[in-house]
């Protein structure tokens, strides 16, 4: 029964995802992709549970490795997205050569 419930959640989420993303302007495709890439690092939650539930030494080590890789994905993904989005802001940069026309 739980499987059915989870499948239900899955179905709704997919439809929601389609609705959310379908009208994003081309300019934002890269940040969007990189942000959703960071979100896919949600697998870190699974990794934390595997690394911390103490079922066996091997599974703990596998979980810890999973935490490492998921954290690279999460931290790197969000920071890179933030850096990119920072460029889209109209900024007054004293170091920039030449002024805006």
């Amino acid at each position: 029964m739980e499987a059915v419930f989870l499948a239900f959640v899955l179905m709704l989420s997919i439809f929601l995802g389609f609705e959310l993303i379908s009208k994003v302007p081309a300019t934002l495709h890269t940040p969007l992709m990189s942000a959703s890439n960071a979100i896919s690092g949600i697998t870190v939650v699974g990794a934390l549970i595997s690394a911390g539930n103490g079922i066996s030494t091997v599974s703990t080590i596998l979980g810890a490795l999973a935490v490492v890789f998921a954290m690279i994905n999460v931290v790197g993904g969000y920071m890179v997205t933030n850096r990119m989005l920072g460029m889209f802001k109209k900024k007054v940069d004293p170091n920039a050569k030449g002024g805006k026309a």
Partner: protein
Amino acid sequence: MSAELVNIGYIVAAALFIVGLRMLGSPATAVRGNTWSAWAMLIAIVVTLLDRQIITFEWIIGGAIVGAAIGWWAAKKVEMTSMPEMVALFNGSGGLSSLLVGWAALYEPNNTLFILITIALSILIGGVTFSGSFIAFAKLAEVMPGKAIVFGAQRLVNALILGGIVVSSVFLCLDPSVTSVWLYVLIGLSLLFGVMAVIPIGGADMPVVISLLNSYSGLAACAAGFAIHNNILIIAGALVGASGIILTQIMCKAMNRSLANVLFSGFGSVKTASKVEGEAKPITAEDAFLILESASSVTFVPGYGMAVAQAQHVVRELGELLEKNGAEVTYAIHPVAGRMPGHMNVLLAEANVPYDQLVEMDDINPRMSNIDVAVVIGANDVVNPAARNDENSPIYGMPIINVDHARTVFVLKRSMASGFSGVDNPLFFGENTRMLFGDAKQSIAGLVAEFKS
């Protein structure tokens, strides 16, 4: 913390992910959207740590510090021009994590058949995402050749690998022991399949591959979510999966090809285009300057070559000089220019090009015949008129920016070599085309110097 409280935390996180993604859809709110989604991640992590299931913390803390440090360092150091490679690496990293989570879940006693199937799926999708992203990284970073690698028995080999994956998954589900040889066979074949899936795809198709792998990493997280009964993984994974698929579709449409065509036929491997004969007409920087100086409308068409030459800053400088000179300046951006969706927009934004000067293909094409000078900077396939005229061309039917309709076209190019797709470009031999040979950055800098003197 009880399971109910943890799940309430997950609901809050899911809501924030959804709102964050929605805000990422508009330039005005995108930064906040990203922040909200980062908060969602933090909430999900914190409530998980408070979960009663977790009894030891040493490994978690160690792993989290190492991973966060690597991610932080990589994100700080990466050049904007190498963003596609970096996104591919991050993506592969997430895939590997899902594989490991699936693997670790096998140690759980009393897994039901349904859970075992999802474990096999998370190992499979995670593995394909990891090795596929890694190959995409290698191609983008030019560690390996970007051209499509195709060999005769490819389909047969792929079918065999796929068969092997099915067989090993079935045996793993029947005998779910962590020492089962089928586990290792499944991991190995999944990794191999990721490699095989990406090598036949050429450099110019990379925007499609990157979006698709992004989608896979979401689906891998989804499968891992089923394997450990965690609904936040399923929700967030499905959102990513759906968004990746939409981007993939947009990219395919921009190339007028089906996804199957992109995935299974290496670019240029199906048909051979009619040979283009003709003589290219080179131009010097001084002559190019004289034409630009008298132009009243100039449009720049950037491509991957601009990223390679790091020319975005000098291009912006030239654009400003032209504007001061009274010309109307635009930047025409093809949806698949560059190596990831929106690649050129990011680079030009980095160089402070005003947002309103960026125009999309469908907006610029109708008025192309009124443009005095179109300057093609390191773009090739996206301006190749063969896509309109030559039915035998592998890129026939792909919508292009019709620079050949402009009064004059400058093509900045290192040499006469063909583009990533390996297709000849009749544009170079056009009546109104002038070739400005040399490194794009130096050529543009030369023009800027002419303007200033």
